[in-house]
């Protein structure tokens, strides 16, 4: 019984899901701290504005992202670069911690197995196709931004492709993590005993 095929498959799936989920949560936790950086960037804008300052620093050679000066508009644009990365990777984190909103009228009355089935099918039919298709179709725009050297039109930041590229990157990351959830869901359907073990690992 212990060695029944479906149990071995469940164990393998669970094992395969672990690293995916761990990385998803870890990346989400690390990028969470960016909210503090967003606060600093906004406060910098407010303070520079209150002082009527346009430039904090100017230097000779063009550098990565900041070009040749740090102006009030650099601070303003930095806000949304940071916010963009923060929110994009947080969506994967929220996937693992089950923070995305459900209308759980019926869902919460379903047996666990059915709940896993709903999520599993949903990830396959809704989430993964959405992430992959949007990422795939947006990629040419990232390339175009890179090739054209797109930058701020207001003396702010350069390297627009960074924040544009973060979008498809984060969506693919989300899809891969959803795959991890599918593995785990399958494992739990095949071997409900893993459920108790699972709750210990809840992120």
């Amino acid at each position, binding site marked *: 019984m212990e060695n029944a095929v479906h149990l071995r498959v469940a164990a393998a799936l669970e094992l395969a899901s672990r690293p995916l989920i761990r990385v998803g949560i870890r990346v989400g936790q690390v990028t969470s701290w960016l909210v503090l950086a967003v606060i600093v960037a906004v406060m910098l804008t407010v303070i*520079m*504005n209150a*002082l*009527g*300052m*346009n*430039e904090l620093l100017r230097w000779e050679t063009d550098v990565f992202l900041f070009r040749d000066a740090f102006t*009030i*508009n650099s601070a*303003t*644009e930095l806000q949304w670069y940071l916010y963009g990365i923060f929110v994009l990777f947080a969506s994967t984190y929220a996937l693992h911690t089950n923070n995305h909103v459900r209308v759980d009228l019926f869902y919460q009355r379903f047996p666990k197995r059915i709940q896993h089935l709903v999520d599993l099918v949903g990830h396959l039919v809704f989430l993964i196709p959405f992430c992959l298709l949007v990422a795939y179709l947006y990629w*040419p*725009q990232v390339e*175009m*931004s890179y090739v*054209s050297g*797109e*930058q*701020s*039109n*207001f*003396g*702010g930041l350069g390297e*627009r492709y960074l924040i544009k590229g973060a979008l498809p990157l984060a969506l693919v990351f989300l899809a891969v993590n959803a795959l991890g959830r599918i593995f785990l869901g399958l494992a739990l359907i095949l071997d409900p005993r893993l459920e108790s073990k699972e709750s210990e690992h809840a992120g």
Partner: protein
Amino acid sequence: LAVSAATLAEGPRQIDVASVFDTGNFLGAGAKYLGDEVEVASGGDIKFRVYEPGDLVPAFEVFNAVSSGAVDAGWDWMGYWAGTIPLLNLYGALPFGPTPEAFASWMWSGGGVDYIQAEYDDYNIKVLPCFVSPQETGGFYNQEINSVEDFDGLRFRISGLGARVLNKFGASTQLIPGGEIYLALERGRIDAAEFSVPQVDEVMGFEDIASYYYFPGWHQSASWFSLIMNKNVWNQYSEEQQAQMETACRSTLAWSMTSAPHRQVQALNEMQERSDIEVRRFNDATLNELKAAWEEVVAAEMEDNPEFREAYESLMAHAQLIEEWYDLQELP
């Protein structure tokens, strides 16, 4: 009676056009006008469906959407894409540039279109500059500007090359999202803001919250708006149909140049009736210093950007000829 293959080619009967301005205002209305003209010129074969900003794609994404073919066409202010094609600063907002008439002359008879089309080729876009707006205003201010020293520390919502001129005098030129300009100006988070021509500014309600409305708009003496079309779409049309669209485009240009100037003064009068806004002019000393600073900025820009230098020199030489002609014809 040879009918060439080109004239048989057929593009879509309806062109989706993503506008970067609401079609309710003068700037966005250009897209509708152009659409009507295209319909007339093509005998009803080609129609525009103009989408409001954000309806298909956010305004700032129109260029990319047209380039990638996601949308057939876009209606834009050319300056929006200067982050991608720096040369467009010249067409969008050129400080101390020629008048709309002289600029239009260079555009269609002095090679102006060719310079930008060469740049747009890299992005698979056909550009039709169809609309030029009158000189913009110098902006709404809550402080008097009596000399360039008054720009020191002034918090001003302004974009483009004009911002770089003001930076030389210590102004803090900034980005405020459209939805927050009103409150920012009302509460004093910024001291001044420039937006557009009076006819368009009128709707923003700035006259209620600002003390002074300054002229002239030295930072933007003419600004261009255009139809940009994905070349895969454009190339599907026969030469005849393409010519119909160009004709419609020039007719729209004529409309923009003839229907606007008197409206600005009417709008200005309406604003003054409704509010306590004071219409003022920058004094000559201020304008001269701004001009001197602009010459430094443009010299730097020409050094960094050979395409800009070529087009700018061509434009200014063309404008010079026009000026000489009018000088010659001047009556006492």
